[in-house]
């Protein structure tokens, strides 16, 4: 019973983190029909910058213990930086390729990814030294226990933040004029511009939104898994990859699908670890991806039509 409850709890926490990141993949795919491989690097930038910012702020303020509002400030800072990076990547690398074949975009995305990684590793930026984010929320004691399962404040904060951000995104996309324009652009760029929609601006907005969610994902991941301190840790690559798999499983291009896919992937991972071999969690995830691509390539909520990427 405890094992089951623990697996549920882990699935919801990691699922929320995957969802935040998966949304950026799915939104960009929905609008430009290519996989933005540099998205996972934006997540890492969010995590590393949060760490640096939190350490710097604590030092400047001369505090040992983080005040309650510091997390919010760090999150806002990380969002601002990631949004700027993503905006520039779209503007400088992807926009010139608007009329080019999608394969060119894909290759460029891989190039951008390598560029961001190597630039970030420079000494004057994040460097390669391990660095641990300070505990921004009190986490010495769990809030409460059910059986032997601890319920930690950080998990509530992760899930709460993710839910708030995702509900806000859902409202924006499905209820606002901007969201309507985004969905129109994702259907067809030319027809959208015949409505008077500035397509380039909508695309920029999509990258900025995706990057804000990615920043939140990276920041919360760093807070939750404090042992991941190395900028070059493979955990980061896997995090981006699993979020991408979530988006594909849910139906790439479909916003609600990305959230659903994230919860499914997180559950497979955590229940697999709890009840099967725990060393093979990554393998389960990719097995599900392969199964999905064979049986229903459009994903759970995606259209059944197969599209070549």
């Amino acid at each position: 019973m405890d094992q089951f409850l623990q697996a549920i709890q882990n699935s919801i926490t990691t699922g929320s983190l995957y969802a935040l990141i998966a949304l950026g993949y799915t939104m960009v795919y929905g609008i430009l029909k290519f996989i933005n491989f540099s998205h996972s690097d934006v997540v890492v930038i969010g995590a590393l910058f949060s760490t640096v910012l939190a350490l710097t702020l604590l030092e400047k303020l001369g505090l040992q213990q983080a005040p309650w509002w510091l997390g919010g400030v760090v999150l806002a800072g990380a969002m601002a930086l990631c949004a700027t990076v993503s905006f520039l990547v779209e503007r400088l690398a992807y926009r010139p390729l608007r009329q080019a074949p999608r394969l060119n975009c894909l290759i460029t995305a891989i190039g951008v990814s390598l560029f961001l990684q190597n630039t970030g590793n420079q000494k004057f930026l994040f460097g390669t030294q391990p660095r641990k984010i300070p505990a921004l929320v009190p986490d010495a004691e769990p809030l409460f226990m059910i059986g032997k399962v601890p319920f930690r404040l950080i998990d509530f904060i992760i899930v709460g933040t993710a839910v708030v951000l995702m509900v806000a995104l859902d409202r924006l996309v499905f209820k606002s004029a901007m969201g309507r324009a985004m969905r129109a652009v994702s259907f067809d760029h030319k027809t959208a511009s015949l409505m008077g929609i500035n397509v380039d601006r909508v695309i920029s907005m999509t990258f900025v939104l995706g990057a804000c969610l990615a920043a939140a994902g990276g920041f919360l991941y760093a807070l939750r898994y404090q042992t991941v301190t190395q900028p070059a840790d493979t955990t980061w690559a896997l995090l981006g990859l699993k979020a991408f798999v979530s988006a594909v499983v849910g139906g790439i291009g479909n916003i609600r699908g990305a959230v659903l896919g994230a919860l499914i992937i997180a559950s497979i991972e955590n229940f697999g670890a709890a009840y099967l071999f725990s060393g093979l969690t990554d393998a389960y995830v990719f097995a599900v991806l392969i199964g999905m691509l064979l049986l229903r390539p459009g994903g759970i909520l995606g259209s059944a039509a197969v599209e070549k990427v």
Partner: protein
Amino acid sequence: MPEATAGAPTTATPTPTGGGGAVLEVRDLVVNYGAVRALHGVSLSVARGEIVTLIGCNGAGKSTTLRTISGLLRPVSGSVRFEGEPLAKVPAHEIVRRGVVQCPEGRGVFANLTVDENLELGAYTRNDDHAADRERALTLFPRLRERLRQNAGTLSGGEQQMLAMARALLARPKLLLLDEPSLGLAPQIVQTIFSIIREINASGTTILLVEQNAHMALTVAHRAYVLEVGRIAMEGPAATLAASDEVRKAYLGIG
């Protein structure tokens, strides 16, 4: 090739409602798709208040002409002026803001959005209250009112065409570009569509109408141009063209 001149149309029956000179002036437009030339120097003009029709066979370049006016394609040479201003450097979305609104060929509706959302997108450029225009569009196309919450992709072809026109009206166009509004519609609905075109024009909107249904187009229009493989072959008052032998043979299937 006859020279298209700016200014008031030659005697047209019925007479246009508004007054005034050329609101749209297209000069010597040359347009390529890659290496393929689609327009070889097209000139035409539309005066305020007119219905002008552009007829021609498949592949003549009618849609290409409209796409170029809307800024979706850029000409190799030649110019498009709207209300005297050249549009060469104006982005497509800005052209809509200026009042040139296109209702594109075929299924130009957003299938993934509801009928209601499609209509709202028609009014995307407007900051004023468009409730009255929405009401008017729904009165013109009552079928849409019953289907407001439905995804536009689930509408029939004819209903999608109606939605595309209603949506274009919500932009409150000064110049409405219609690309084959009668395509694939049952004869009865075609009648309705053309009477609506007349009604839209009577309420003050200038219209450039692209059609394959030359008979209907020449009936509603004041003036007409005949496009043949990227060139204007004939132009004149619609009634005159409808009576000419060439048009009767080639486009009306008479004689």
